[in-house]
């Protein structure tokens, strides 16, 4: 029997940006980052991507194939960019669940959607992507936009998403990825490690969170690796679309 007073040296570690941390601490550290940036999250998205994040999300909506009456789960939905558009597409007979592990982000998302008059068919749930609190075969579409890289056990999260999807349902993973050209990659590195923390410092007075953002993007699996992970989790017909030279990729998989 192990002594609970001793630190558990056998606990597996994971990455938090370029740091290695015990797995149990990653979620807390990610939560601290998002608590810190929640209030100015949208503004920072616009500044750092030059508004491109709106086009990436727009393309995600186009590939979702959502129809009236569908049930959609938007994991790590943050400030509700996707949920707002899904709410319109599913109509009053459908349902959109905006889920986020972070209470601050969820609150910002809920307030923002209510301010825009989006209500009635949207529910807000604080949930961990690895242990989704929904029944099996429940959703027609599951999306996770810029959230998977913050999940500690990505394989568990993908399996959990597969479980809650109906057979024939679609998972869409929108995430930063690896630029397809090495020249673009170098320019993107310079931008990420010089400009992003500086912008974070100037706008949110928090350079560290944006340094973590840049580092976490580099630690995230590239296009082919993520595709393989989705196939291993049990998804069928997995494809991906590179956007903005591969800086962002949209993966889509179907539950068989």
């Amino acid at each position, binding site marked *: 029997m192990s002594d609970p007073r001793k630190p558990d040296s056998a606990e597996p570690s994971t990455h938090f940006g370029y740091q290695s941390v015990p797995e149990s601490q990653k979620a807390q550290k990610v939560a601290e980052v998002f608590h810190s940036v929640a209030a100015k999250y949208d503004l920072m998205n616009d500044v750092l991507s030059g508004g491109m994040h709106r086009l990436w999300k727009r*393309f995600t*909506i186009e590939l979702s*194939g959502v*129809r009236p009456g569908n049930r959609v789960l938007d994991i790590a939905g943050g400030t509700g960019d996707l949920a707002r558009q899904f709410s319109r597409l599913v109509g009053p007979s459908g349902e959109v669940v905006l889920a986020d592990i972070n209470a601050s982000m969820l609150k910002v998302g809920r307030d923002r959607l209510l301010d825009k008059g989006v209500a009635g068919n949207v529910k807000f749930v604080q949930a961990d992507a690895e242990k989704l609190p929904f029944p099996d075969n429940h959703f027609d579409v599951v999306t996770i936009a810029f959230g998977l890289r913050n999940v500690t056990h990505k394989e568990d999260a993908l399996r959990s998403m597969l479980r809650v999807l109906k057979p024939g349902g*679609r998972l869409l993973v929108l995430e930063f990825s690896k630029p397809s050209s090495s020249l673009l990659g170098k320019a993107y590195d310079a931008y990420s490690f010089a400009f992003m923390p500086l912008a974070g410092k100037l706008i949110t007075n928090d350079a560290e969170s944006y340094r973590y953002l840049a580092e976490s993007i580099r630690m995230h699996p590239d296009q082919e690796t993520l595709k393989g992970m989705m196939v291993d989790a049990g998804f069928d017909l997995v494809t991906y679309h590179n956007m903005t030279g591969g800086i962002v990729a949209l993966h889509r998989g179907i539950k068989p």
Partner: protein
Amino acid sequence: MLTTALLAGVEAGLNRVLALDASALPRLAALEGRVLAIDCAAPALRLYLLPGADGLRLAGHWAAPADCTLRAPASRLLQLAVRRDKTAVLHAPDVELEGNSACLLDLAAILQDLELDWEGALADWLGPLGAVAAARPLHGAGAWGSDSLASLRLNLADWLAEEARTLLGRREAEARFAELDELKLALDRLEARSERLARRLPETD
């Protein structure tokens, strides 16, 4: 991404224009959930229109099947966009409709009935008096331009048909077409008669 950005820009502008008509958005809301695909033959281009309470959503891709698909060459689609009588264009022979055409006809009717309140939009910027003062000369110029264009069209048609004799006049052309139709009917009758006679003749070796 470029197409997506372009469509996003067009969509924003189009929806601002649609908002100038008081009845357009409520009528579009009735079509919420419908997906219309516009398939342009040359150049090859596919566009999806999704009407809703906020206006029209334009998309270059749409994973769900379309309720109605309109296939037409670019010239017809251009006519559809600019002509007031849109239903006449939809009945042209090179226009193909597939699926539930009612939603497309409803959308065409909404766009056909647009009455944009430019004066109201100007009033937001200039105030009611300023809007009237600015709109009056614009209305006058618009009416003068429209009258001049109609007059030019008539004069040009008269000149081409009567003076230069480059083209046939409308009535003359209609008379010729009627004669051609008569001739075609007579030819059909003659063909049928000759076939009947041929059948009556005894078969020869």
